[in-house]
């Protein structure tokens, strides 16, 4: 009894220490709560190199991004030598332009324009019927040199795409599908809308212009949008897509990368209109790169890296900053105990029965990569297929371990075949199979096939269903994007998990499913 009392004291002590340590950090964190909640954060750096002219002044102009509802631009820094004059100007369609000018002759100049970009993705739902548009948007309906929306070929195509449609939504879908189906080609030179039709191949700028041209022809105000797809790399390519004005909102469409009425988190919006990102005085030596680096951030905190490190010595931020451990691996490590606790709760308090104790957590992790619905379907298919294929081997009467090896081999074989089929026919979700924890999945399949023999297929299916339920619940918890960040700032939670597990371990209450099982005894 004494050791029990000691244990209880120790547990209370651990809990109190953990809670106090959490409490000390809570206040500054609440103060710095960030309701913008970006999904990603990158440091972007425009690097320009040029040699000024020998007979006149030289100017380099570029567009500069602005914050909006889905992107935040901050920590802007401009570095250039003192002979360059910098000015910001707002153009007539609302873009911001940075202009560097110099009167010096035949000298080399570098310009660094740096900022932090934080972005969120957006998915829009389009109404069936659109409201009529006021006259002030007329310029988004007018043809231009490169967007020949009044050309007969464009008109023909637009009429064809508009046929047999019930509403505006379907028209836009038709236009998008048509432009998306045009083969893409890495054409660097300018492709106008007409050329895109004639060549039947185009890159982002040709496709966007064609999309805009068809929309304008059918009376939907549309415009080109320019920016950069940010990735953790140095690049020279910028990107353009299109926007259509639907009920006072500009809705994004990227007919090259198949983003229909949606925009991914890593699209940096820089300007609108059919413009060039960089313009400079003709006939000068000019070169550029975009230097892009991912920044460690915590989505719900308005703090930079140093501020987070100063928050408390008890946090895992230093591991994140050191960059030795891949972020995903760290997240997985931190989420495992939480997932385990959830499974313990589901088993001992709810009474859910699953194949394999921690299988639901591990499958839920794979689902984060694969996607929930296709992942669940793949998971069930794999279990059923492996169970089915290994059934004849069960019948022959093989020793347990060698039989397990056969199932494992079948599982690996299925994964490889599915991946190959996926690559051959370009079916993305089939190539994600290797994210599954192979061995644990095999053991689950083995248990499933044994359960069908021992308890009947009805019980086995029932248990499989319960496993799926537990997996779905784990997925719901693990897919909460704040969770890893919270654990990084509050690693004390791990101690609290131990306390919770101790409490669960001594829980003698009736499991929820036992209320149902022993129902006749409760009346």
């Amino acid at each position, binding site marked *: 009894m004494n050791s029990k009392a000691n244990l209880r004291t120790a547990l209370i002590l651990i809990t109190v220490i953990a809670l106090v340590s959490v409490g000390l950090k809570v206040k500054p964190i609440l103060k710095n709560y960030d309701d913008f909640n970006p999904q990603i954060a990158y440091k972007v750096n425009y690097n320009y190199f040029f040699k000024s002219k020998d007979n006149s002044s030289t100017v380099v102009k570029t567009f500069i991004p602005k914050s909006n509802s889905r992107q935040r631009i901050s920590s802007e820094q401009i570095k250039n030598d003192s002979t360059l004059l910098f000015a910001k100007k707002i153009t007539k369609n609302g873009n911001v332009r940075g202009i560097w000018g110099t009167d010096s002759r035949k000298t080399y100049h570098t310009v660094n324009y740096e900022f932090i970009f934080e972005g969120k993705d957006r998915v829009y739902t389009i109404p069936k019927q659109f409201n009529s548009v006021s006259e002030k948007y007329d310029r988004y309906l007018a043809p231009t040199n490169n967007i020949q929306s009044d050309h007969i070929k464009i008109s023909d195509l637009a009429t064809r795409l508009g046929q047999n449609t019930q509403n505006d939504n379907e028209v836009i879908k038709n236009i998008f599908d048509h432009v998306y189906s045009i083969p893409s080609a890495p054409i660097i030179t300018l492709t106008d809308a007409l050329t895109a039709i004639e060549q039947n191949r185009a890159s982002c700028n040709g496709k966007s212009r064609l999309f805009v041209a068809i929309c304008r022809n059918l009376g939907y105000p549309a415009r080109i949008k320019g920016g950069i797809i940010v990735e953790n790399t140095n690049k020279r390519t910028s990107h353009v897509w299109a926007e259509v004005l639907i009920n006072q909102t500009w809705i994004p469409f990227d007919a090259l990368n198949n983003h229909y009425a949606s925009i991914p988190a890593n699209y940096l919006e820089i300007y609108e209109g059919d413009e060039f990102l960089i313009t400079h005085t003709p006939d000068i030596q000019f070169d550029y790169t975009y230097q892009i680096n991912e920044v460690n951030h915590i989505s719900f905190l308005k703090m930079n890296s140093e501020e987070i490190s100063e928050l408390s010595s008890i946090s895992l931020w230093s591991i994140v900053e050191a960059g030795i451990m891949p972020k995903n691996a760290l997240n997985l490590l931190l989420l495992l105990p939480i997932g385990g606790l959830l499974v313990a709760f589901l088993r001992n308090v709810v009474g859910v029965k699953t194949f394999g104790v921690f299988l639901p957590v591990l499958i839920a992790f794979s689902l984060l990569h694969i996607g929930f619905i296709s992942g669940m379907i793949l998971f069930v298919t794999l279990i059923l297929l492996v169970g089915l294929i290994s059934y004849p081997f069960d019948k022959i009467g093989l020793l347990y371990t060698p039989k397990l090896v056969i199932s494992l081999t079948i599982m690996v074989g299925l994964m490889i075949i599915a991946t190959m089929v996926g690559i051959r026919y370009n079916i993305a979700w089939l190539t994600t199979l290797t994210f599954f924890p192979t061995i644990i999945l095999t053991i689950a399949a083995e248990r499933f096939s044994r359960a069908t023999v021992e*308890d009947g297929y009805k019980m086995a299916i029932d248990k499989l269903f319960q496993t799926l339920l537990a997996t779905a619940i784990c997925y719901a918890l693990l897919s909460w994007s704040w969770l890893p960040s919270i654990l990084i700032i509050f690693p004390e939670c791990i101690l609290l998990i131990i306390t919770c597990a101790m409490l669960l371990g001594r829980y003698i209450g009736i499991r929820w499913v036992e209320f149902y099982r022993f129902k006749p005894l409760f009346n």
Partner: protein
Amino acid sequence: MFSTISHMKSRKESKVIGLNERNIKLIYPNNPKKHYPLADDKVLTKEILHQYDIPCAETYAVIEYNSDIKKAWAYCKKYNTMAIKPANGCGGGGIKIIRKDLDNNWTTSGKVISEREIFQHMAATIMGFFSLGSHDRVLIEECIEPHPFFHEIYPQGVPDFRIITLDKKPLMGMLRMPTDRSDGKANLHQKGVGIGVNMEKGTLTQVYDGKLYYDHHPDSKFVVKDVPIPYWEEILEISVATAKAFPLNYLGIDIVIDKIKGPQIMEINVRPGLGIQLVNKEGLKNSILKTNR
């Protein structure tokens, strides 16, 4: 939500024990893990039973190595019927009842089986085919013929009593019976039925099939209510003797009544299931209170 709360209240009154409470309050403190093999290994169980002269099926042979199969068989051949079991089998897998027919052929489940096939079965058992890959022993023992009392209730299969003991005292009991749908098996979750037992009077109470209660066996319509159990005093005696013989304080003891020799211990279980509460319409906590009064 409110229904859950009202359930909680009635749970307190009904004294039902759930899996969590069974594990923490009954199994962990009463059954030390190091003694589990005494119950899980049928050969070890029988060694102790024989040692204390507790009635159980006579052991004909125990085979540990393939090389001993022929020798053991030479000895066992003289019997007309026997049960061949894996010592560590689970869920009844690998148990074969064989008997001689009129032409002196060995048969199992009504089909003729050659000596060669019997040897193969024994060799497979030794290789661990029925015990998840670990080496195992073969137990050959006397085949128990059920008492005619059972035939009145239901004529087929082997019914058995399950007595739960705590601290060497019988707590609760039930009679497990096969049905038309259970394929000769008497287990509740294999579609057999459980019949409640009045521990004080030694009579049967009601039949439970996993869903509903009846006062008769669902197939034979034999009314069980208040039917006295033959040999009831002996059943209680050998249960207590068994509980005293083992260093395990919470047991599920399986007993069959042989038509000549009376009650025999079949096997003992360190993790007895909780369905017995449903069969008896009583929570285990309640019977613990009653027994210790």
